[in-house]
């Protein structure tokens, strides 16, 4: 057997092959689905040629779901910022048992199946007809589901010892709470806030369980429309819908991840020598 070249790690080749195989196994169904959405006839394969016809049909039938899903996701992000960030701070600073109990309670909707949460919302607020039939009802469900992710992510950042010291430093310099919170603490945890936003956005835009129970024919979201198209349309239309879903969320996710990455590296890049 030939000796391994100097510096190479034993097993590195096997690891690379295993990683590649798993990546292909994971991505293949997605690639196939996307390709199917561009095929004139999936049963005949590529021989039947490629087309954008299905994309057009999806857009004509379900275009409104894209706007609603984006609006709901952005609404969730806005509420998570307004409510989740201060809530994360309050929980991080509080030492009371009530705060710990509330934090546990907040994670309940993550563990409970979405269908059960949706049913609870319908039982509690379903009689408010205008609210029940509006997109706000779905937004309420999404907020219940996504808020814990923002609170947890930001709360962990606020608990860092250096953040406590920053807060104290600003206090010794005479800054009141609002000034400290907005001017010192929030910017110091900005990468965690962006990470929380990313999580809230992705969870909301892909949420199906809750939304399936809460939606009305006039308030269909992207995943609900996707399920509808899979159930009632040609396979090519369902696949084209998947493609549109990816085209809509991928740029948003990339932009948010790039922002988080930039923030994390901002200080490192200003060091001498860079």
């Amino acid at each position, binding site marked *: 057997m030939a000796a391994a070249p100097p510096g190479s790690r034993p097993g590195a080749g096997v690891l690379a092959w295993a990683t590649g195989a798993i990546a292909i196994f994971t991505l293949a169904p997605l690639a196939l689905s996307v390709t199917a959405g561009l095929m004139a006839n999936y049963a005949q394969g590529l021989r039947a040629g490629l087309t954008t016809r299905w994309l057009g049909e999806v857009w004509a039938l379900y275009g409104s779901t894209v706007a609603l899903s984006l609006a709901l996701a952005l609404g969730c992000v806005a509420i998570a910022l307004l409510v989740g960030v201060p809530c994360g701070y309050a929980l991080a600073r509080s*030492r009371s048992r009530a705060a710990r109990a509330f934090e546990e309670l907040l994670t309940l909707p993550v563990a409970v199946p979405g269908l059960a949460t949706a049913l609870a919302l319908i039982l509690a607020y379903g009689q408010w007809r205008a609210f029940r039939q509006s997109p706000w009802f779905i937004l309420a469900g999404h907020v219940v589901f996504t808020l814990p992710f923002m609170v947890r992510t930001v709360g962990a950042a606020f608990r860092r010892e*250096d953040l406590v*010291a*920053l807060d*104290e*430093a*600003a*206090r*010794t*310099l*005479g*800054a*009141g709470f609002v*000034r400290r919170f907005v001017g*010192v603490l929030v*910017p*110091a945890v*900005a990468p965690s806030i962006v990470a929380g936003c990313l999580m809230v956005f992705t969870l909301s835009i892909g949420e199906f369980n809750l939304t399936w129970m809460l939606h009305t024919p006039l308030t269909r979201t992207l995943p609900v429309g996707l399920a509808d198209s899979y159930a009632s349309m040609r396979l090519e239309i369902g696949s084209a819908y998947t493609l549109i879903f990816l085209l809509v969320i991928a740029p948003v996710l990339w932009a948010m991840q790039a922002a988080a990455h930039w923030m994390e590296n*901002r*200080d*490192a890049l*200003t*060091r*001498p020598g860079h």
Partner: protein
Amino acid sequence: MPSPAPGTEGARVRLVGCARTHAGGVRALKATSLDIAPGEVLALLGPSGCGKTTLLRLVAGLLAPDAGGQVLFDDEDVTALPVERRDIGMVFQHYALFPQMSVAANIGYGLRVRGADAAQVRGRVGELVEMMRLQGLEQRRPAALSGGQKQRVALARAVAVRPRVLLLDEPLAALDAQLKESLREDLAHWLRQWRITTVHVTHDQREALAVADRLAVMRAGQVLQVGSGETLYRTPAHAFVAEFLGRVNRLARAPADRDTVTLRLGGAELTVPGETAGSTTLLLRPEDIVIVEPEIGVPCGVVRHRTFLGDRVQLRVALEDQAELLVDQKRDVKARPGDRVGLQIDTRHLMPAPPEDTP
């Protein structure tokens, strides 16, 4: 109360019966009273966990004393005054610089909070940047600064608002030895220039001696002794104080000699100062011994160990009637392990060992 420093801008700080019990019942500080003159620099010196940072945070208002304790700035009782309104400046151990702000923005933060206009902020920041030798770094963020630069920015930020009281929480602890020494000199110079009442927490006795007008040595949540560095070094009231401020030799006296002015040491009899009569143990600093030729009538011993420390040499000398003595000498001392040497002792430097204090 010590007299105020001339041209001082600081407040007189008094702590009256301040104790602190943390959540869970841990007593971090026993009832403590201190009086710090306007413009004075007081070092709180002691090992980790002795309560010095707790005491500092009580002055800052970041902790409240147990019921009955009082903190006064001049004649104003600030015990219940929130930290934001105490008009203090504080340097934290790891600086706590605002990471998203530039050096200039960090220094000017307190001024902006107080509503100073842009020209005032620019002027004061420029003044401090120059004083602290931070020119060219004004637009850098803290992550792009060295440890020494961060320390200077933190100090500039704390004094920019011309506080009544300046609090320094181990400001040099995170620096390497060489940088620490140079910044220690700078700090001592600046503090004398500013004349702000300063409480400086440190566990480094050299730093405390170099920077402070007076030292308060602490142990186990208690201030053991307060005084100038020289007083504490030469006339410690506690064995702990003597040993914390520097190495010290303990010389035991024979029971028969305790009420006399005699100390038997290395085969010789020394006449010791009258005030040491009655002490069972005398203390002697290693630098108060000089190595000489062994002669009759001079305490003698054998060098057991020699350590070269760069600026000096430390010898361990074994005596037949005492424990080993530590002797600090100039680095050109010839004595080597195994050599018999004489020990010349200026008996005026012998200190009676204080009764052993129990924590």
